[in-house]
Protein backbone atom coordinates (compact mmCIF):
# COMPACT_ATOMS: atom_id res chain seq x y z
CA UNK A 1 0.00 0.00 0.00
CA UNK A 2 1.39 3.40 -0.90
CA UNK A 3 1.39 6.32 1.44
CA UNK A 4 -1.28 8.83 0.71
CA UNK A 5 -0.30 12.38 -0.06
CA UNK A 6 -1.48 15.18 2.11
CA UNK A 7 -4.53 17.05 1.01
CA UNK A 8 -5.25 20.39 2.66
CA UNK A 9 -8.21 19.35 4.80
CA UNK A 10 -6.61 16.24 6.27
CA UNK A 11 -6.87 16.34 10.05
CA UNK A 12 -4.90 13.23 10.92
CA UNK A 13 -2.68 11.04 8.87
CA UNK A 14 -0.73 7.98 9.94
CA UNK A 15 2.02 6.57 7.71
CA UNK A 16 3.51 3.12 7.88
CA UNK A 17 2.93 2.64 11.61
CA UNK A 18 4.79 -0.36 13.03
CA UNK A 19 4.45 -1.66 16.54
CA UNK A 20 5.70 -4.86 18.15
CA UNK A 21 5.20 -6.31 21.59
CA UNK A 22 8.02 -8.72 22.33
CA UNK A 23 8.20 -10.93 19.26
CA UNK A 24 4.66 -10.22 18.14
CA UNK A 25 4.20 -7.70 15.36
CA UNK A 26 0.87 -6.08 16.12
CA UNK A 27 1.07 -3.40 13.43
CA UNK A 28 2.97 -4.03 10.22
CA UNK A 29 2.82 -0.68 8.46
CA UNK A 30 -0.63 0.89 8.73
CA UNK A 31 -1.43 4.04 6.78
CA UNK A 32 -4.64 6.02 6.43
CA UNK A 33 -5.95 9.51 6.97
CA UNK A 34 -9.00 11.30 8.33
CA UNK A 35 -10.38 14.51 6.86
CA UNK A 36 -11.68 17.36 8.93
CA UNK A 37 -15.18 16.63 10.16
CA UNK A 38 -14.99 13.11 8.85
CA UNK A 39 -16.10 10.09 10.85
CA UNK A 40 -13.91 7.11 10.06
CA UNK A 41 -14.79 3.68 11.32
CA UNK A 42 -11.83 1.54 12.35
CA UNK A 43 -12.86 -2.06 11.93
CA UNK A 44 -11.25 -5.42 12.32
CA UNK A 45 -11.49 -8.71 14.09
CA UNK A 46 -10.13 -9.19 17.59
CA UNK A 47 -6.34 -9.08 17.39
CA UNK A 48 -6.33 -7.21 14.11
CA UNK A 49 -4.48 -4.33 15.74
CA UNK A 50 -7.26 -1.79 16.32
CA UNK A 51 -6.50 -1.20 19.98
CA UNK A 52 -2.78 -1.06 19.35
CA UNK A 53 -3.26 1.55 16.64
CA UNK A 54 -5.46 3.64 18.91
CA UNK A 55 -2.91 3.41 21.67
CA UNK A 56 -0.20 4.62 19.31
CA UNK A 57 -2.25 7.61 18.23
CA UNK A 58 -3.37 8.47 21.76
CA UNK A 59 0.17 8.21 23.08
CA UNK A 60 -0.36 5.28 25.45
CA UNK A 61 2.08 3.04 23.52
CA UNK A 62 4.13 5.12 21.06
CA UNK A 63 4.78 3.44 17.72
CA UNK A 64 8.13 1.78 16.92
CA UNK A 65 8.26 3.15 13.42
CA UNK A 66 6.17 5.34 11.12
CA UNK A 67 4.80 8.87 11.28
CA UNK A 68 1.77 10.64 12.62
CA UNK A 69 0.79 13.90 10.95
CA UNK A 70 -1.65 16.44 12.32
CA UNK A 71 -2.84 19.02 9.79
CA UNK A 72 0.00 17.95 7.54
CA UNK A 73 2.71 18.46 10.16
CA UNK A 74 4.63 15.51 11.50
CA UNK A 75 4.24 15.31 15.31
CA UNK A 76 5.83 13.27 18.05
CA UNK A 77 3.31 11.59 20.31
CA UNK A 78 5.13 9.96 23.18
CA UNK A 79 2.53 10.27 25.92
CA UNK A 80 -1.21 10.82 26.38
CA UNK A 81 -0.36 14.42 27.22
CA UNK A 82 1.40 14.85 23.85
CA UNK A 83 -1.70 13.55 22.11
CA UNK A 84 -3.89 15.96 24.04
CA UNK A 85 -1.57 18.82 23.23
CA UNK A 86 -2.03 17.94 19.56
CA UNK A 87 -5.80 18.09 19.90
CA UNK A 88 -6.40 14.36 20.05
CA UNK A 89 -8.84 13.25 22.74
CA UNK A 90 -9.86 9.71 23.51
CA UNK A 91 -13.26 8.59 24.73
CA UNK A 92 -13.25 5.20 26.39
CA UNK A 93 -16.06 2.72 26.72
CA UNK A 94 -17.24 3.58 30.19
CA UNK A 95 -13.99 4.20 31.94
CA UNK A 96 -13.42 7.87 32.04
CA UNK A 97 -16.09 9.29 34.29
CA UNK A 98 -16.06 9.70 38.04
CA UNK A 99 -19.38 8.36 39.32
CA UNK A 100 -19.61 10.61 42.38
CA UNK A 101 -18.75 13.79 40.49
CA UNK A 102 -21.31 15.99 38.82
CA UNK A 103 -21.21 16.69 35.12
CA UNK A 104 -19.35 19.95 35.52
CA UNK A 105 -16.59 18.41 37.63
CA UNK A 106 -16.23 15.56 35.17
CA UNK A 107 -15.96 17.93 32.23
CA UNK A 108 -13.14 19.82 33.88
CA UNK A 109 -11.31 16.97 35.59
CA UNK A 110 -7.58 17.63 35.50
CA UNK A 111 -8.22 20.80 33.49
CA UNK A 112 -9.84 22.73 36.25
CA UNK A 113 -10.31 26.45 36.02
CA UNK A 114 -8.61 28.08 38.97
CA UNK A 115 -9.62 31.22 40.77
CA UNK A 116 -8.42 34.44 39.22
CA UNK A 117 -7.22 35.62 42.62
CA UNK A 118 -3.46 34.97 42.51
CA UNK A 119 -3.20 33.91 46.16
CA UNK A 120 -6.11 31.47 45.98
CA UNK A 121 -4.79 30.33 42.63
CA UNK A 122 -1.51 29.39 44.26
CA UNK A 123 -3.39 27.01 46.55
CA UNK A 124 -5.25 25.51 43.63
CA UNK A 125 -8.54 27.15 44.57
CA UNK A 126 -11.18 26.15 42.03
CA UNK A 127 -13.47 28.56 40.24
CA UNK A 128 -16.61 26.42 40.44
CA UNK A 129 -18.75 29.25 39.08
CA UNK A 130 -16.81 29.64 35.87
CA UNK A 131 -16.65 25.87 35.35
CA UNK A 132 -20.40 25.62 35.81
CA UNK A 133 -20.94 28.41 33.33
CA UNK A 134 -18.74 26.79 30.73
CA UNK A 135 -20.28 23.38 31.37
CA UNK A 136 -23.67 24.76 30.60
CA UNK A 137 -22.39 26.17 27.32
CA UNK A 138 -20.68 22.90 26.43
CA UNK A 139 -23.80 20.88 27.08
CA UNK A 140 -25.89 23.30 25.01
CA UNK A 141 -23.43 23.11 22.19
CA UNK A 142 -23.91 19.35 22.08
CA UNK A 143 -27.66 19.66 22.25
CA UNK A 144 -27.34 17.13 24.98
CA UNK A 145 -30.28 15.84 26.90
CA UNK A 146 -28.37 15.87 30.16
CA UNK A 147 -30.72 17.53 32.61
CA UNK A 148 -28.19 19.58 34.53
CA UNK A 149 -24.47 20.03 34.85
CA UNK A 150 -25.02 19.62 38.58
CA UNK A 151 -26.29 16.05 38.25
CA UNK A 152 -23.96 13.38 39.57
CA UNK A 153 -22.74 10.98 36.91
CA UNK A 154 -23.99 7.95 38.79
CA UNK A 155 -27.54 9.22 38.35
CA UNK A 156 -27.13 9.35 34.57
CA UNK A 157 -27.86 6.69 32.00
CA UNK A 158 -25.07 5.02 30.05
CA UNK A 159 -25.78 7.16 27.01
CA UNK A 160 -25.69 10.32 29.07
CA UNK A 161 -22.40 9.26 30.62
CA UNK A 162 -20.92 8.70 27.21
CA UNK A 163 -22.26 12.09 26.17
CA UNK A 164 -20.35 13.61 29.09
CA UNK A 165 -17.16 11.90 27.94
CA UNK A 166 -17.65 13.19 24.42
CA UNK A 167 -18.54 16.64 25.68
CA UNK A 168 -15.35 16.66 27.68
CA UNK A 169 -13.28 15.79 24.63
CA UNK A 170 -14.97 18.44 22.52
CA UNK A 171 -14.88 20.97 25.30
CA UNK A 172 -11.12 20.65 25.40
CA UNK A 173 -10.96 21.88 21.86
CA UNK A 174 -10.20 18.50 20.40
CA UNK A 175 -9.90 18.41 16.61
CA UNK A 176 -9.76 14.66 16.57
CA UNK A 177 -11.76 12.42 18.92
CA UNK A 178 -10.95 8.75 19.14
CA UNK A 179 -13.85 6.68 20.43
CA UNK A 180 -13.20 3.16 21.56
CA UNK A 181 -16.43 1.18 21.37
CA UNK A 182 -18.53 4.05 22.74
CA UNK A 183 -21.79 2.16 22.36
CA UNK A 184 -20.68 -1.34 23.32
CA UNK A 185 -22.22 -1.22 26.77
CA UNK A 186 -25.38 0.64 25.75
CA UNK A 187 -28.91 -0.30 24.84
CA UNK A 188 -30.39 0.47 21.43
CA UNK A 189 -31.89 3.81 22.29
CA UNK A 190 -28.86 4.97 24.27
CA UNK A 191 -26.57 3.95 21.43
CA UNK A 192 -28.68 5.93 18.99
CA UNK A 193 -28.20 8.97 21.21
CA UNK A 194 -24.46 8.58 21.10
CA UNK A 195 -24.54 8.12 17.33
CA UNK A 196 -26.49 11.32 16.97
CA UNK A 197 -23.91 13.04 19.11
CA UNK A 198 -21.14 11.76 16.87
CA UNK A 199 -22.91 13.12 13.82
CA UNK A 200 -23.35 16.43 15.60
CA UNK A 201 -19.72 16.94 16.50
CA UNK A 202 -18.70 15.84 13.04
CA UNK A 203 -20.95 18.53 11.62
CA UNK A 204 -19.09 20.99 13.84
CA UNK A 205 -15.85 20.12 12.04
CA UNK A 206 -14.44 17.61 14.49
CA UNK A 207 -12.92 14.43 13.09
CA UNK A 208 -13.84 11.14 14.71
CA UNK A 209 -12.05 7.83 14.64
CA UNK A 210 -14.65 5.31 15.73
CA UNK A 211 -13.65 1.82 16.78
CA UNK A 212 -16.68 -0.41 16.67
CA UNK A 213 -17.82 -3.96 16.21
CA UNK A 214 -21.28 -2.82 15.33
CA UNK A 215 -21.52 -2.78 11.50
CA UNK A 216 -24.91 -1.12 11.66
CA UNK A 217 -23.58 1.79 13.66
CA UNK A 218 -20.61 2.14 11.36
CA UNK A 219 -22.91 2.20 8.33
CA UNK A 220 -25.05 4.76 10.05
CA UNK A 221 -22.55 7.33 11.33
CA UNK A 222 -19.28 6.83 9.44
CA UNK A 223 -18.23 8.38 6.17
CA UNK A 224 -15.49 5.91 5.58
CA UNK A 225 -14.26 2.62 7.00
CA UNK A 226 -10.71 1.42 7.47
CA UNK A 227 -10.45 -2.33 7.96
CA UNK A 228 -7.44 -3.79 9.73
CA UNK A 229 -6.37 -7.39 9.18
CA UNK A 230 -3.25 -8.96 10.63
CA UNK A 231 -1.72 -5.59 11.47
CA UNK A 232 -2.28 -4.05 8.05
CA UNK A 233 -4.96 -1.80 6.58
CA UNK A 234 -6.77 -4.34 4.44
CA UNK A 235 -9.31 -1.88 3.08
CA UNK A 236 -10.14 1.82 3.08
CA UNK A 237 -13.58 2.33 1.62
CA UNK A 238 -16.30 4.96 1.47
CA UNK A 239 -19.39 3.78 3.29
CA UNK A 240 -21.68 4.86 0.46
CA UNK A 241 -19.78 2.49 -1.83
CA UNK A 242 -20.19 -0.64 0.26
CA UNK A 243 -22.86 -2.93 1.66
CA UNK A 244 -22.86 -4.19 5.22
CA UNK A 245 -22.26 -7.74 4.00
CA UNK A 246 -19.21 -6.69 2.03
CA UNK A 247 -17.90 -4.87 5.07
CA UNK A 248 -18.24 -8.02 7.14
CA UNK A 249 -16.49 -9.92 4.39
CA UNK A 250 -13.58 -7.48 4.53
CA UNK A 251 -13.28 -7.90 8.27
CA UNK A 252 -13.31 -11.68 8.17
CA UNK A 253 -11.09 -11.82 5.08
CA UNK A 254 -13.75 -13.51 2.98
CA UNK A 255 -13.63 -10.53 0.62
CA UNK A 256 -10.58 -8.58 -0.60
CA UNK A 257 -10.51 -4.87 -1.17
CA UNK A 258 -11.10 -3.87 -4.75
Amino acid at each position, binding site marked *: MTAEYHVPDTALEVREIHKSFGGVQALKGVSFSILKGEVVGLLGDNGAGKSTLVRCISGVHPQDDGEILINGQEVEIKSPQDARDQGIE*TVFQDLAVIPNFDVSKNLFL*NREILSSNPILRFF*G*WLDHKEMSRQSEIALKRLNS*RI*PSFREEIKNLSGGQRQAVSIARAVNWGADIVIMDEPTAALGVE*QAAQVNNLIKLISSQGISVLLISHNIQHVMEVCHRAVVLRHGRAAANVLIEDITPDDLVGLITGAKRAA
Partner: protein
Amino acid sequence: MTFLSETRSQVFHKILNREYFVYYALILVIAFFAVVLSETAFLSTPNFMNIIRQTTPITVMAVGMTFALAVGHIDLSVGSVVALSALVCGLLVDIVPWPVAVLAGLSSGLLVGLINGVLTEWLKVSSLLITLGSMGVISGIARVITNLESIPITNDSFTYIFGSGSFGSVSVMFIWTLLALILGWVFLSKTRFGSHLLAVGGNPTASRALGINVVKVKITAMVIAGGAAAMAGMLYAGRLHGARYSLGEADLLTVIAAVAIGGTSLFGGRASVAGAVVGSWLMGVINNGLILWGFSTNEQIIARGLILIVAVAIGVKEDRR
Protein backbone atom coordinates in the same frame (compact mmCIF):
# COMPACT_ATOMS: atom_id res chain seq x y z
CA MET B 1 -34.62 8.07 27.86
CA THR B 2 -36.05 9.21 31.16
CA PHE B 3 -35.31 12.68 32.28
CA LEU B 4 -34.23 13.12 35.80
CA SER B 5 -36.69 15.08 37.75
CA GLU B 6 -37.05 15.16 41.45
CA THR B 7 -39.83 12.77 42.23
CA ARG B 8 -41.09 12.58 45.74
CA SER B 9 -39.22 9.38 46.47
CA GLN B 10 -36.03 10.98 45.31
CA VAL B 11 -36.51 13.97 47.57
CA PHE B 12 -37.17 11.53 50.36
CA HIS B 13 -34.03 9.65 49.45
CA LYS B 14 -32.00 12.84 49.50
CA ILE B 15 -33.18 13.69 52.99
CA LEU B 16 -32.29 10.21 54.17
CA ASN B 17 -29.00 10.40 52.30
CA ARG B 18 -26.09 9.22 54.36
CA GLU B 19 -24.42 12.58 53.95
CA TYR B 20 -26.98 14.00 56.31
CA PHE B 21 -27.38 10.96 58.51
CA VAL B 22 -24.71 11.99 60.97
CA TYR B 23 -26.37 15.34 61.66
CA TYR B 24 -29.72 13.75 62.41
CA ALA B 25 -27.99 11.16 64.54
CA LEU B 26 -26.18 13.82 66.56
CA ILE B 27 -29.35 15.81 67.17
CA LEU B 28 -31.24 12.65 68.06
CA VAL B 29 -28.60 11.41 70.47
CA ILE B 30 -28.28 14.79 72.19
CA ALA B 31 -32.05 15.02 72.51
CA PHE B 32 -32.19 11.49 73.89
CA PHE B 33 -29.49 12.09 76.51
CA ALA B 34 -30.96 15.49 77.38
CA VAL B 35 -34.13 13.71 78.42
CA VAL B 36 -32.56 10.69 80.11
CA LEU B 37 -29.89 12.73 81.86
CA SER B 38 -32.04 15.76 82.62
CA GLU B 39 -30.92 15.69 86.24
CA THR B 40 -27.24 15.92 85.39
CA ALA B 41 -25.20 18.63 83.77
CA PHE B 42 -25.28 16.85 80.40
CA LEU B 43 -27.06 19.71 78.67
CA SER B 44 -24.67 22.44 79.74
CA THR B 45 -22.07 24.51 77.95
CA PRO B 46 -19.18 23.33 80.14
CA ASN B 47 -20.09 19.70 79.43
CA PHE B 48 -20.22 20.29 75.67
CA MET B 49 -16.92 22.13 75.85
CA ASN B 50 -15.66 19.04 77.69
CA ILE B 51 -16.82 16.79 74.91
CA ILE B 52 -15.22 18.91 72.23
CA ARG B 53 -12.00 19.18 74.21
CA GLN B 54 -11.62 15.47 74.74
CA THR B 55 -12.75 14.66 71.21
CA THR B 56 -10.39 17.04 69.43
CA PRO B 57 -7.57 14.51 68.82
CA ILE B 58 -10.14 12.07 67.41
CA THR B 59 -11.60 14.87 65.27
CA VAL B 60 -8.19 15.74 63.84
CA MET B 61 -7.41 12.09 63.14
CA ALA B 62 -10.83 11.65 61.54
CA VAL B 63 -10.20 14.56 59.18
CA GLY B 64 -6.88 12.98 58.18
CA MET B 65 -8.47 9.56 57.76
CA THR B 66 -11.08 11.14 55.50
CA PHE B 67 -8.32 11.95 53.02
CA ALA B 68 -6.96 8.39 53.10
CA LEU B 69 -10.44 6.96 52.58
CA ALA B 70 -11.18 9.50 49.84
CA VAL B 71 -8.56 7.90 47.58
CA GLY B 72 -9.67 4.40 48.51
CA HIS B 73 -6.96 3.77 51.09
CA ILE B 74 -7.21 3.21 54.81
CA ASP B 75 -4.62 4.04 57.44
CA LEU B 76 -4.58 1.67 60.39
CA SER B 77 -1.36 3.17 61.72
CA VAL B 78 -2.91 6.46 62.90
CA GLY B 79 -3.09 5.33 66.52
CA SER B 80 0.55 4.35 66.65
CA VAL B 81 1.57 7.58 64.91
CA VAL B 82 -0.17 9.48 67.71
CA ALA B 83 2.11 7.81 70.24
CA LEU B 84 5.23 8.19 68.12
CA SER B 85 4.76 11.88 67.36
CA ALA B 86 3.84 12.70 70.96
CA LEU B 87 6.92 10.87 72.22
CA VAL B 88 9.24 12.44 69.67
CA CYS B 89 7.94 15.84 70.66
CA GLY B 90 8.04 14.99 74.36
CA LEU B 91 11.62 13.76 74.17
CA LEU B 92 12.76 16.87 72.32
CA VAL B 93 10.78 19.59 74.01
CA ASP B 94 13.26 20.07 76.84
CA ILE B 95 16.25 19.98 74.52
CA VAL B 96 15.25 22.26 71.66
CA PRO B 97 12.83 25.20 71.41
CA TRP B 98 9.32 23.82 71.63
CA PRO B 99 8.24 24.79 68.08
CA VAL B 100 11.14 22.70 66.79
CA ALA B 101 10.00 19.77 68.91
CA VAL B 102 6.49 20.18 67.49
CA LEU B 103 7.87 20.26 63.96
CA ALA B 104 9.86 17.12 64.65
CA GLY B 105 6.78 15.40 66.06
CA LEU B 106 4.67 16.41 63.08
CA SER B 107 7.43 15.38 60.67
CA SER B 108 7.54 11.93 62.20
CA GLY B 109 3.86 11.49 61.30
CA LEU B 110 4.31 12.92 57.80
CA LEU B 111 7.25 10.58 57.30
CA VAL B 112 5.25 7.54 58.39
CA GLY B 113 2.47 8.62 56.02
CA LEU B 114 4.99 8.96 53.21
CA ILE B 115 6.43 5.51 53.88
CA ASN B 116 2.93 4.01 54.08
CA GLY B 117 1.98 5.65 50.79
CA VAL B 118 5.17 4.79 48.92
CA LEU B 119 5.16 1.18 50.11
CA THR B 120 1.53 0.74 49.15
CA GLU B 121 2.16 2.02 45.62
CA TRP B 122 5.53 0.36 45.22
CA LEU B 123 4.54 -3.09 46.45
CA LYS B 124 1.03 -2.72 44.99
CA VAL B 125 -0.38 -4.17 48.18
CA SER B 126 -3.53 -3.02 49.92
CA SER B 127 -2.93 -0.09 52.27
CA LEU B 128 -4.81 -2.13 54.86
CA LEU B 129 -1.95 -4.63 55.02
CA ILE B 130 0.85 -2.07 54.75
CA THR B 131 -0.52 0.10 57.55
CA LEU B 132 -1.30 -2.96 59.65
CA GLY B 133 2.41 -3.71 59.44
CA SER B 134 3.55 -0.16 60.05
CA MET B 135 1.18 0.09 63.00
CA GLY B 136 3.11 -2.76 64.63
CA VAL B 137 6.51 -1.36 63.73
CA ILE B 138 5.72 2.14 64.98
CA SER B 139 4.13 1.12 68.24
CA GLY B 140 7.19 -1.10 68.77
CA ILE B 141 9.49 1.86 68.14
CA ALA B 142 7.40 4.01 70.48
CA ARG B 143 7.90 1.41 73.19
CA VAL B 144 11.60 0.98 72.55
CA ILE B 145 12.58 4.66 72.50
CA THR B 146 10.92 5.22 75.86
CA ASN B 147 11.36 1.86 77.51
CA LEU B 148 7.62 1.99 78.28
CA GLU B 149 8.19 5.06 80.44
CA SER B 150 6.00 8.11 80.34
CA ILE B 151 7.61 11.33 79.18
CA PRO B 152 6.49 14.35 81.16
CA ILE B 153 6.10 17.63 79.28
CA THR B 154 6.44 20.69 81.45
CA ASN B 155 6.81 23.34 78.77
CA ASP B 156 4.01 25.77 79.55
CA SER B 157 3.79 27.29 76.07
CA PHE B 158 3.42 23.86 74.55
CA THR B 159 0.80 22.61 76.98
CA TYR B 160 -1.08 25.89 76.67
CA ILE B 161 -1.23 25.91 72.90
CA PHE B 162 -1.88 22.20 72.43
CA GLY B 163 -4.02 21.42 75.42
CA SER B 164 -4.99 23.46 78.42
CA GLY B 165 -5.17 26.94 76.96
CA SER B 166 -8.41 28.84 76.55
CA PHE B 167 -9.80 32.11 75.33
CA GLY B 168 -12.41 33.00 77.87
CA SER B 169 -14.50 29.87 78.18
CA VAL B 170 -13.48 28.63 74.73
CA SER B 171 -10.83 25.94 74.97
CA VAL B 172 -7.90 26.12 72.61
CA MET B 173 -8.90 22.61 71.60
CA PHE B 174 -12.04 24.05 70.07
CA ILE B 175 -9.88 26.29 67.91
CA TRP B 176 -7.90 23.25 66.75
CA THR B 177 -11.14 21.48 65.90
CA LEU B 178 -12.31 24.48 63.86
CA LEU B 179 -8.94 24.68 62.16
CA ALA B 180 -9.04 21.00 61.22
CA LEU B 181 -12.58 21.39 59.94
CA ILE B 182 -11.88 24.47 57.84
CA LEU B 183 -8.53 23.32 56.47
CA GLY B 184 -9.83 19.86 55.65
CA TRP B 185 -13.00 21.16 54.07
CA VAL B 186 -11.28 23.80 51.97
CA PHE B 187 -8.61 21.40 50.84
CA LEU B 188 -11.01 18.64 49.89
CA SER B 189 -13.89 20.63 48.43
CA LYS B 190 -12.40 23.84 47.18
CA THR B 191 -9.08 22.97 45.60
CA ARG B 192 -7.93 21.18 42.52
CA PHE B 193 -6.01 18.69 44.61
CA GLY B 194 -9.10 17.75 46.63
CA SER B 195 -10.99 17.21 43.41
CA HIS B 196 -8.23 14.92 42.17
CA LEU B 197 -8.24 12.99 45.45
CA LEU B 198 -11.91 12.19 45.06
CA ALA B 199 -11.53 11.45 41.36
CA VAL B 200 -8.75 8.97 42.06
CA GLY B 201 -10.86 7.34 44.76
CA GLY B 202 -13.94 7.26 42.55
CA ASN B 203 -12.33 5.88 39.41
CA PRO B 204 -8.55 5.47 39.35
CA THR B 205 -8.50 4.16 35.77
CA ALA B 206 -10.37 7.16 34.47
CA SER B 207 -8.22 9.52 36.52
CA ARG B 208 -5.08 8.01 35.06
CA ALA B 209 -6.52 8.19 31.56
CA LEU B 210 -7.23 11.88 32.06
CA GLY B 211 -3.65 12.53 33.02
CA ILE B 212 -3.90 12.71 36.82
CA ASN B 213 -0.81 11.44 38.59
CA VAL B 214 -2.68 8.80 40.55
CA VAL B 215 0.36 7.55 42.45
CA LYS B 216 1.28 11.01 43.66
CA VAL B 217 -2.27 11.77 44.73
CA LYS B 218 -2.57 8.52 46.67
CA ILE B 219 0.73 8.99 48.43
CA THR B 220 -0.18 12.56 49.36
CA ALA B 221 -3.43 11.34 50.89
CA MET B 222 -1.49 8.96 53.13
CA VAL B 223 0.92 11.75 54.09
CA ILE B 224 -2.04 13.91 55.13
CA ALA B 225 -3.48 11.07 57.20
CA GLY B 226 -0.11 10.59 58.92
CA GLY B 227 0.34 14.31 59.49
CA ALA B 228 -3.12 14.64 61.02
CA ALA B 229 -2.43 11.71 63.34
CA ALA B 230 0.82 13.38 64.40
CA MET B 231 -1.14 16.56 65.11
CA ALA B 232 -3.49 14.50 67.27
CA GLY B 233 -0.38 13.29 69.08
CA MET B 234 0.55 16.91 69.88
CA LEU B 235 -2.95 17.54 71.20
CA TYR B 236 -2.85 14.47 73.44
CA ALA B 237 0.58 15.42 74.73
CA GLY B 238 -0.60 18.98 75.36
CA ARG B 239 -3.72 17.90 77.20
CA LEU B 240 -2.01 15.25 79.32
CA HIS B 241 1.19 17.23 79.89
CA GLY B 242 3.06 14.15 78.83
CA ALA B 243 3.45 11.42 76.26
CA ARG B 244 3.16 7.69 76.57
CA TYR B 245 3.56 4.74 74.23
CA SER B 246 -0.06 3.75 74.73
CA LEU B 247 -1.52 7.04 73.49
CA GLY B 248 -3.91 6.56 70.60
CA GLU B 249 -3.82 2.78 70.90
CA ALA B 250 -7.56 2.50 71.32
CA ASP B 251 -8.56 5.24 68.90
CA LEU B 252 -8.59 3.45 65.55
CA LEU B 253 -12.09 2.03 65.78
CA THR B 254 -13.51 5.33 67.03
CA VAL B 255 -11.86 7.24 64.20
CA ILE B 256 -13.08 4.88 61.49
CA ALA B 257 -16.56 4.84 62.98
CA ALA B 258 -16.65 8.65 63.09
CA VAL B 259 -15.50 9.01 59.49
CA ALA B 260 -17.77 6.29 58.15
CA ILE B 261 -20.87 7.54 59.86
CA GLY B 262 -20.03 11.03 58.64
CA GLY B 263 -20.74 9.96 55.08
CA THR B 264 -17.28 9.09 53.79
CA SER B 265 -17.22 5.93 51.72
CA LEU B 266 -14.90 3.22 53.00
CA PHE B 267 -14.16 2.39 49.37
CA GLY B 268 -13.07 5.77 48.10
CA GLY B 269 -14.50 8.53 45.96
CA ARG B 270 -16.90 10.04 48.45
CA ALA B 271 -15.76 11.99 51.45
CA SER B 272 -17.06 14.58 53.85
CA VAL B 273 -14.78 16.46 56.21
CA ALA B 274 -17.67 18.14 58.00
CA GLY B 275 -19.30 14.73 58.37
CA ALA B 276 -16.14 13.32 59.91
CA VAL B 277 -15.96 16.17 62.42
CA VAL B 278 -19.62 15.81 63.37
CA GLY B 279 -19.15 12.03 63.42
CA SER B 280 -16.36 12.41 65.96
CA TRP B 281 -18.59 14.65 68.07
CA LEU B 282 -21.29 12.01 67.90
CA MET B 283 -18.85 9.44 69.25
CA GLY B 284 -17.82 11.90 71.96
CA VAL B 285 -21.39 12.69 72.98
CA ILE B 286 -22.28 9.00 73.17
CA ASN B 287 -19.19 8.32 75.25
CA ASN B 288 -19.97 11.20 77.60
CA GLY B 289 -23.66 10.37 77.83
CA LEU B 290 -23.07 6.71 78.59
CA ILE B 291 -20.64 7.58 81.38
CA LEU B 292 -23.00 10.13 82.90
CA TRP B 293 -25.72 7.53 82.64
CA GLY B 294 -23.58 5.10 84.58
CA PHE B 295 -22.66 2.68 81.81
CA SER B 296 -19.30 0.95 81.80
CA THR B 297 -16.63 1.16 79.16
CA ASN B 298 -17.46 -2.32 77.95
CA GLU B 299 -20.95 -1.18 77.09
CA GLN B 300 -19.50 1.85 75.37
CA ILE B 301 -17.39 -0.43 73.20
CA ILE B 302 -20.51 -2.30 72.20
CA ALA B 303 -22.25 0.98 71.39
CA ARG B 304 -19.31 2.06 69.23
CA GLY B 305 -19.30 -1.23 67.36
CA LEU B 306 -23.02 -0.95 66.71
CA ILE B 307 -22.60 2.58 65.39
CA LEU B 308 -19.90 1.36 63.01
CA ILE B 309 -22.20 -1.35 61.72
CA VAL B 310 -25.01 1.15 61.18
CA ALA B 311 -22.64 3.53 59.41
CA VAL B 312 -21.21 0.85 57.18
CA ALA B 313 -24.65 -0.54 56.42
CA ILE B 314 -25.87 2.85 55.26
CA GLY B 315 -22.66 3.44 53.36
CA VAL B 316 -22.64 0.15 51.51
CA LYS B 317 -26.29 0.50 50.62
CA GLU B 318 -25.59 3.89 49.15
CA ASP B 319 -22.54 2.70 47.22
CA ARG B 320 -24.42 -0.11 45.53
CA ARG B 321 -26.82 2.29 43.86
